[in-house]
């Protein structure tokens, strides 16, 4: 068995420099399905050398995460099985082991010590009831045989290494007390605590904000160079791939369709699927020379849908939405989610509202449709103030403004047919009667490119992209003037994302829809927006025409945000991206500590920037 392999020198091969650290050959994996096992990975070949980064890329369901689970043999716990192939791994002392044949005990000794892992959601990978220092020290004690004091000292050194600010204090905390970025750093510290030779990172930056993502990517590259680790990096994001990988393997439905050096793959993708993936990836700066947005469609025209001088559909004047924070019965402070936000959207225009998580962009959208009730300010719908709405105002608001949410599955009632869901706004507002409703549902389905039979189906039968189309059809049902798309494409795979963006823009063209496009994805925002507003800590810090804001950003935060976006072009990879450290502070403030709202000053035609009294250019 595996034990004997390590003990018999005759069976081991010396690991020469540059030899494969990990070599996967003909790997096939099966997962249990409703009707027996389903093959999820087929005959995969893959190699990672020491000091090399190999990216495993694919859309959801392509089998990239199961592959990571198979290599660490954690697959066994999920009910999955390795049905064929071998996974050769060269250990520190030069032994070459087939991980497929290794027993549990031997595998356990390899995990952590030789193969480190970092997962997407650090909160679920960290023990919630154990302080951070104890968790890292435990791993060090177990694998490196240090005593308690030495292990704790090493844990502190590691946290310093992954640049956790104020490490001594952070060490004493529980995982839930840390921000997402900090947690991921702790996770990385934990993974490298035993100097693994191979680090497997499964979407380690997907749950992070773009500026934090840039920090974590840089950290991973530095650590890899320092320790000479092999890095197997799993991601769906071509931008991240270009930023970090030496070689790329593209997976499609469990098959590796293409494998190449990163530069070569991006320059000349040989497989149609790779080409499609690359085409679908929005590249920030693609529309740098154009004033108007343009969809991803092949022969797309500039989205010239705004009439100059038209009265705005929606005007928001100084709204503020704050959430009370109580301890016991006492009011301790407020989260200033939205603070003095003003903007207007004209017919046919798309205003992109961008910012990182917690900046208040979604709350702004929710405040407009009164899912949250703003504390101050006015919302004007075609000139009428609806901040203190009458019943008729409310009905008009709910008819004229529709929302498309991020998660299309959760946004549809699972117990109602899609037809019912789409017809609901029509019935609620009495826009049609009897057979006319059904006809309208059919035409709405056709509008979003779905067959009429879908009216009888239920949400669970559809794919994510189809469900989002249904949500869009539903939003169109009441013939609204404005659609608020709240991260509407964020949960979709890149290829589907491009299709849905194209659909939204096509519908805008046909119905002269105004859109408030809330997103954290700068590249998509560049594609769809006529104008862009950047939010930071509940306030708009910069607003103006898309080209002006993206090409000549004036506010320091806008510049930082744009600089952090990974560019899917390895030729433009920066040696080490100049990343500002530090994270966005919390928008929660004590009662007496009201935030200072910086006034917006004009810096160009229709282009305004917040002028801060301290720090920053403006």
């Amino acid at each position, binding site marked *: 068995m595996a034990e004997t392999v390590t003990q018999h020198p005759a069976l081991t091969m010396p690991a020469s420099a540059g030899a494969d650290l990990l070599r996967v050959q003909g790997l096939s994996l099966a997962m249990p399905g409703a009707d027996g096992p389903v093959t999820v990975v087929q005959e995969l070949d893959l190699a990672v050398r020491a000091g090399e980064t190999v990216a495993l890329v694919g859309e959801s369901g392509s089998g990239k995460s199961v592959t990571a689970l198979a290599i660490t043999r954690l697959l066994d716990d999920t009910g999955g099985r390795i049905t064929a192939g071998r996974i050769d791994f060269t250990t520190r002392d030069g032994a070459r082991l087939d991980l497929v044949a290794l027993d549990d005990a031997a595998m356990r000794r390899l995990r952590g010590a030789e193969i480190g892992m970092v997962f997407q959601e650090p909160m679920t990978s960290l023990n919630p009831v154990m302080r951070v220092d104890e968790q890292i020290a435990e791993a060090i004690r177990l694998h490196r045989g240090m005593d308690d004091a030495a292990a704790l000292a090493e844990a502190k050194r590691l946290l310093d290494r992954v640049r956790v600010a104020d490490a001594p204090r952070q060490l004493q905390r529980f995982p839930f007390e840390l921000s997402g970025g900090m947690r991921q750093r702790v996770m990385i510290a934990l993974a490298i605590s035993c100097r693994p030779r191979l680090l497997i990172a499964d979407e380690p930056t997907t749950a992070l904000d773009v500026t934090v993502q840039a920090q974590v990517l840089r950290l991973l590259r530095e650590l890899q160079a320092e320790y000479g680790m092999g890095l197997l990096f799993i991601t769906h994001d071509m931008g991240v791939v270009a930023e970090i990988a030496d070689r790329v393997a593209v997976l499609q439905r469990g098959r590796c369709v293409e494998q190449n050096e990163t530069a070569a793959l991006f320059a000349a993708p040989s497989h149609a699927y790779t080409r499609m993936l690359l085409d679908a990836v929005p590249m920030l700066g693609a529309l740098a020379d154009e004033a108007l947005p343009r969809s991803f469609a092949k022969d797309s025209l500039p989205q010239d849908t705004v009439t100059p001088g038209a009265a705005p559909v929606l005007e928001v004047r100084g709204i503020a939405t704050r959430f009370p924070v109580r301890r016991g019965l006492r009011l301790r402070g407020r989260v200033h989610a939205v603070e003095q936000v003003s903007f207007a959207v004209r017919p046919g225009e798309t205003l992109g509202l961008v910012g990182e998580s917690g900046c208040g962009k979604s709350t702004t959208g929710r405040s407009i*449709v009164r*899912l949250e009730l703003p504390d101050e300010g006015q919302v004007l719908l075609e000139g009428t103030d609806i901040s203190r709405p009458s019943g008729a105002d*409310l*009905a008009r*608001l*709910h*008819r004229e*403004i*529709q*929302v498309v*949410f991020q*998660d299309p599955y*959760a*946004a*549809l*009632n*699972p*117990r*109602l047919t899609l037809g019912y869901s789409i017809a*609901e*706004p029509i019935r*609620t*507002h009495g826009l049609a009667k009897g057979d006319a409703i059904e006809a309208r549902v059919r035409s709405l389905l056709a509008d979003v490119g779905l067959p009429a039979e879908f009216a*009888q*189906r*239920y949400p*669970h*039968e*559809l794919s994510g992209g189809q469900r989002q189309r249904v*949500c869009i059809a*539903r939003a169109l049902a*009441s013939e609204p003037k404005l659609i608020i798309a709240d991260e509407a494409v964020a949960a979709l795979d890149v290829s589907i994302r491009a299709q849905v963006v194209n659909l939204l823009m096509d519908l805008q063209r046909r119905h002269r829809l105004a859109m408030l496009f809330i997103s954290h994805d700068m590249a998509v925002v560049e594609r769809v927006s006529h104008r862009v507003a950047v939010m930071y800590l509940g306030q708009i810090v910069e607003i103006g025409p898309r080209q002006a804001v993206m090409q000549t950003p004036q506010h320091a935060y806008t510049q930082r945000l744009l600089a952090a976006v990974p560019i899917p072009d390895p030729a433009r990879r920066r040696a080490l991206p100049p990343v500002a450290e530090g994270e966005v502070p919390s928008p929660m403030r004590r009662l007496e500590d009201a935030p200072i709202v910086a006034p917006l000053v004009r810096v160009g035609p229709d282009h305004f920037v917040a002028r801060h009294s301290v720090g920053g250019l403006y």
Partner: protein
Amino acid sequence: MSDTIRTPFGEFWRRFKRQRVALVAGGLIVLVILAAIAAPLIAPYAPAEPDYNSILEGPSAAHFLGTDAYGRDVLSRIIWGAQVSLTVGFLSVALGLLVGVALGLVSGFLGGWVDSILMRLMDVLLAFPGIVLAIGVVAVLGPGIDNVIYAIAVFSVPVFARLVRGSALALKQSLYVQAARTIGVRAPALMLRHILPGCLPAVIVYASLRLGTSILTAASLSFIGLGARPPSPEWGAMLADGRSYLGVADHLTLFPGIAIFLVVLAFNLLGDGLRDALDQKLRT
């Protein structure tokens, strides 16, 4: 994706079919219900007809389950008794369910002081042990099978109300309810069309478990003389009658006991199976 439309009920049935134990339990319950309905046709003797020639006889070919102190056929009484027990069970649970679900739905959806007042009331009801509360209600209303139904319903109300309030609170925050709000769907439609159906799986499971408890409670009340009056063949009352002949004619307590046991067990197993088939968390 298949061509057949997969309705929520179809999905439920697909999963429920795999619950062998629950299917058997459900089958048993259907049999008992059919027997109760067909009692005049299938019971070999009239339930209250004394036969002084065969008193306290053990099981025989003439009387499969023996006879009691008045020579009445135990099997016939158990079959007729199923009518009483099931009626009490279903009616009391239905009554408790209707009131409890309505209160819970309103409480969870409206929140605020309505919620506080309703839930404190439910807490008061829950603070009494169920059987004590039922005895109290029957003591006030007077003994009799009708009053047993009300008594059991009263202590079923708070559990249903709490259950539904919890689900309603969670569903109120769900994205699809928020989405319906942004469309302008009004409160009654939101409650009945979007929130209530989401609460129903839990209610159905609990109702099934509750049926067993209610039948047991009705039997207990009859056993202590607060429920069905003689000569009603209620199972709890039969147990009480048979108590005097323990050691002389054990079948008088054994067979009604088995009937109660089987029916209560069947409802509990059915409830467990329904939970496994309906529980969102167990779905993949």
